């Protein structure tokens, strides 16, 4: 009689254990998972792909007389309800633009995430007390940094709309523009809209 509850507990434990969803790696190359209301990596991949394709296709980045433009990433504003690191979009865009051979990105100056602080930290050594510790020939010389010719900046924003009693519509807008820093003229601009419709209960932030 005493063993009966014990057996039931063991069975209950086994049952609960078997119900837990299995952890599996996402096949990021051919992900067949359902869409989600929030922005996931597929949305960023799509937005980045459409942006890069549009930039290349436009011919705006093809430098007259050959060579590559020096580009930096300016300010990318996240105006969504989600905590998005805008580098999630820009890292892909920058990578593809550099691989295209059209531009070379600078880490010397730029918005959040663009600069590499080491470029300036190494130069700060010149004025520091430790300056003598370094072989002066190995410290970056003055007047070597190349200023950017183009800047890419943009915005990601979100609109939540009530679709009907049970569903909501969430619209995500990805906007990027490329500006010639010298003249201030805008060479290229594009917008990708990703819209999702789903249950009101789904949270998109």
């Amino acid at each position, binding site marked *: 009689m005493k063993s009966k509850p014990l057996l039931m507990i063991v069975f209950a434990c086994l049952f609960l254990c078997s119900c837990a969803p299995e952890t599996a790696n996402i096949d990021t190359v*051919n*992900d*067949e*998972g*359902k*869409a989600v209301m929030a922005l996931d990596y*597929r949305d960023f*991949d*799509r937005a*980045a*792909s*459409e942006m*890069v*394709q549009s930039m*290349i*296709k436009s*011919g705006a*980045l*093809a430098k007259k007389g050959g060579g590559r433009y020096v580009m930096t990433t300016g300010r990318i504003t996240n105006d969504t309800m989600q905590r998005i690191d805008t580098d999630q979009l820009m890292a*892909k865009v920058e*990578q*593809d633009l550099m*691989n*295209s*051979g*059209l531009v070379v990105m600078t880490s010397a100056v730029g918005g959040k995430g663009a600069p590499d602080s080491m470029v300036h930290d190494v130069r700060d050594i010149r004025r520091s007390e430790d300056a003598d510790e370094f072989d002066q020939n190995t410290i970056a010389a003055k007047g070597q940094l190349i200023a950017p010719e183009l800047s890419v900046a943009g915005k990601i924003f979100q609109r939540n709309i009530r679709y009907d009693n049970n569903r909501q519509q969430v619209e995500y807008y990805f906007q990027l523009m490329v500006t010639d820093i010298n003249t201030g003229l805008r060479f290229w601009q594009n917008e990708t809209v990703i819209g999702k419709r789903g249950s009101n209960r789904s949270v998109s932030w």
Partner: protein
Amino acid sequence: MKTVLNILICVLALSVSSCYQPYDQRINVREGIRSDSLENNIATRPVLTALSALIGEGIDVTKLISTTNQAGFMEIQVSGFNRSYETRRFQFKVEWFDGSGMVIGSKASTWLPVSAVGKSPFSFSSVAPSRDAADFKLNTRREQ
């Protein structure tokens, strides 16, 4: 039973014999918007729609244009026709290869959506991520 069969044969014969002729091949006016005709009207349309679904009509690719743009990047454009009565949503992904047949890795090589309205032409395009691209492979899948 015999009557239904006769009607079906008539509908089939009519739809095959007298098809809609557009004013210009570049302009597509869908059924239900353009004037009804003998072979396509409020009575025959449900039968044609059901028949189309039964025989599994879908997307047909009719044209592929491959060119190199002014900046030296290979570009492709795929055109086709959605033979189905329903909007077909699908995704495509292009893999680019260099002159020696090696894949050119790119973040831009991802599944992108296409939507083709029923009984209408559609087209989509893609540009290579590098000037080294010499060939491509395009794959499609159902929209997720």
